[in-house]
């Protein structure tokens, strides 16, 4: 019974995560300017990847496989924002201006 429940939960996580990945990709295609697209990449990097990996962890159980999945997740959580930040800073240094709705000096 518990096994089946875990199985169902892991399928939900896996498919939900894949849907979030697809949504993020659509966002990358749909958003109007470079800086907005970065937010869509964040969706892929965090919730999409997290849910897929968590779903696989539930399938793996308490084994070395799960440890490796956790390591993959750990690397993604730390390298994802760094890569996004590097992209944003390089774009700003090269003089790419963001589209702003109602600019404020804040």
């Amino acid at each position, binding site marked *: 019974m518990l096994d089946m429940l875990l199985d169902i939960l892991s399928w939900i996580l896996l498919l939900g995560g894949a849907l979030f*990945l697809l949504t993020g990709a659509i966002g990358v295609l749909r958003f109007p300017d470079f800086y907005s*697209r970065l937010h869509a990449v964040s969706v892929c990097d965090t919730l999409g990847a997290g849910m897929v990996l968590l779903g696989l962890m539930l399938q793996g159980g308490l084994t070395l496989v799960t440890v490796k999945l956790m390591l993959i997740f750990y690397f993604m959580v730390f390298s994802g924002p760094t890569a996004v930040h590097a992209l944003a800073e390089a774009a700003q240094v090269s003089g790419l201006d963001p589209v702003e709705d109602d600019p404020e000096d804040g």
Partner: protein
Amino acid sequence: MYSIATILILVAIAVGLVRAFRGPTLFDRVMAGNMIGTLTVLLVAVLGFMNGRPEFLDIALVYVLISFVSTIAVLRVYVSRHGDPDSD
């Protein structure tokens, strides 16, 4: 079920490729490449489970690191070509 997840991830990669081809700036392309890297890692992991060969995870683990380093490397090359001493 694994196959549905695989197909969804493949479609996402295809959508990402469209953005990589369209550009319009270099950064859009690097960004799309970075996202496709993330998606590939997850694809490799899911495929490993689908074929019952969790050893694929080692490949995924290495791919995470390579994809991160390659993104940073492309940006480093770009910045050093355009000579900006501040943005090290």
